[in-house]
């Protein structure tokens, strides 16, 4: 296990996508799931207690090293990231796709009360939404769902990890921000 840790760390470090326990097992050939998991947990603890610049994120069914959110301003400056965040309209459309998938464009538009062609296209281009197939209805409309990229982008372990939709009575007075 002592030798496993740096090896697994080097794999996480070298990978540009999240690694599953099975990915790691395939590379190591030996190594049971349990000790891989233990090594991962131990690494995650190290990063936290030693206050490293990155942490181990459990995302999209796997594990990935990511810079700590508290250093976002520095990392952003380094990467010269433009605020390519999704617009509020795109976020709403994405939330509907995430929670209601498999979903038709017409369902989304019915819910939002506005045309969603533009925002859907943006989401498809960004790779967070994908075409799942077609529905057996007149016109054979496309059915949409979220992609793995969606999980990666929003730091979600899997779709079950989406917070449950809130009960409005519980929220009471707290209104979501509107555009005014």
């Amino acid at each position, binding site marked *: 296990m002592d030798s496993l840790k740096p090896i697994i760390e080097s794999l996480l470090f070298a990978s*540009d996508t999240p690694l599953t326990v099975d990915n790691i097992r395939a590379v190591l050939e030996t190594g049971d799931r349990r000790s891989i998991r233990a090594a991962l947990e131990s690494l995650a603890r190290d990063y936290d207690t030693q206050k490293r610049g990155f942490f181990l994120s459990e995302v999209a069914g796997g594990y990935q090293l990511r810079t700590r959110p508290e250093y976002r301003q520095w990392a952003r400056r380094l990467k010269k990231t433009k605020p390519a965040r999704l617009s509020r*309209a795109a976020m709403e459309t994405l939330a509907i796709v*995430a*929670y209601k998938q498999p979903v038709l464009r017409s369902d989304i538009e019915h819910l939002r009360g506005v045309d969603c062609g533009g925002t859907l296209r943006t989401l498809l281009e960004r790779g967070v939404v*994908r*075409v799942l197939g077609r529905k057996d209805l007149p016109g054979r409309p496309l059915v949409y769902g979220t*992609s793995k990229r969606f999980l990666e982008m929003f730091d979600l372990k899997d779709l079950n990890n989406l917070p449950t939709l*809130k009960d409005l009575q519980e929220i009471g007075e707290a209104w*979501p921000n509107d*555009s005014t």
Partner: protein
Amino acid sequence: MEQEAQGHAGYRVHVEEVFEGPMDLLVHLVKKNEVDLYDIPIAVIASQYMDYLKMMKGLNIDVAGDFLVLAATLAHIKSRMLLPCCEEDQDEEDPRMEIVRPLEEYLRLKYAAEDLSLRNQLDWDVFARGAPEIAELSEEPSEDLVQVSLFELIDAFKRIVRRVSAEEFFHITVDTISVKSRIGEIVDFLEGRDSVTFEALFEGQVTKGQIIVTFLAILEMAKSQVIRIMQHRASGVIRVFYG
């Protein structure tokens, strides 16, 4: 925004910048009036909604048809509320439910969208490693696995369409793709057999559409000489030969 619009004659604002849509405006009104979502004073809200539409028109904002549809719905609910018909022991539900239910659903998803946007977003709040030392590490890529998204495929197709005249592509419709799909299935079926009877290709094809598609697929395959179709002189049995 009001002063701005008045300051510039002919200044046009898209309504999206003000309210994303009619539901957004409705949420804003319910919130502003601090009323209970389940007991909306429909007359007040409907009249304020109309005031907003008027104001937006006055400011030269393009008011989309969606806004007018909701205005009509509100007016309709208002009129139904005025009817004295449904007093006590009503079997009929509160007419306001027509608007409350979608509003509720919309709000729940709005909250969800907010929650999502508060998460640590990749390439904004957190950053992963790119492909480090790639030249050093990638010797030969694995042969059997390929990872691409459907959208990348479509993008590739789009690039070609941009370069080539559209006439080359006009026949790509759902129908021809069904035929293509059926061609694939027929090839699957024919693989490992020299020939099958014509009828065998229609097995399991029950709907009229399926039969037509199968027939078109056979014609297309014969045309491109993927198959040959022969009829036995004596028995009259039609056989399809592969390759």
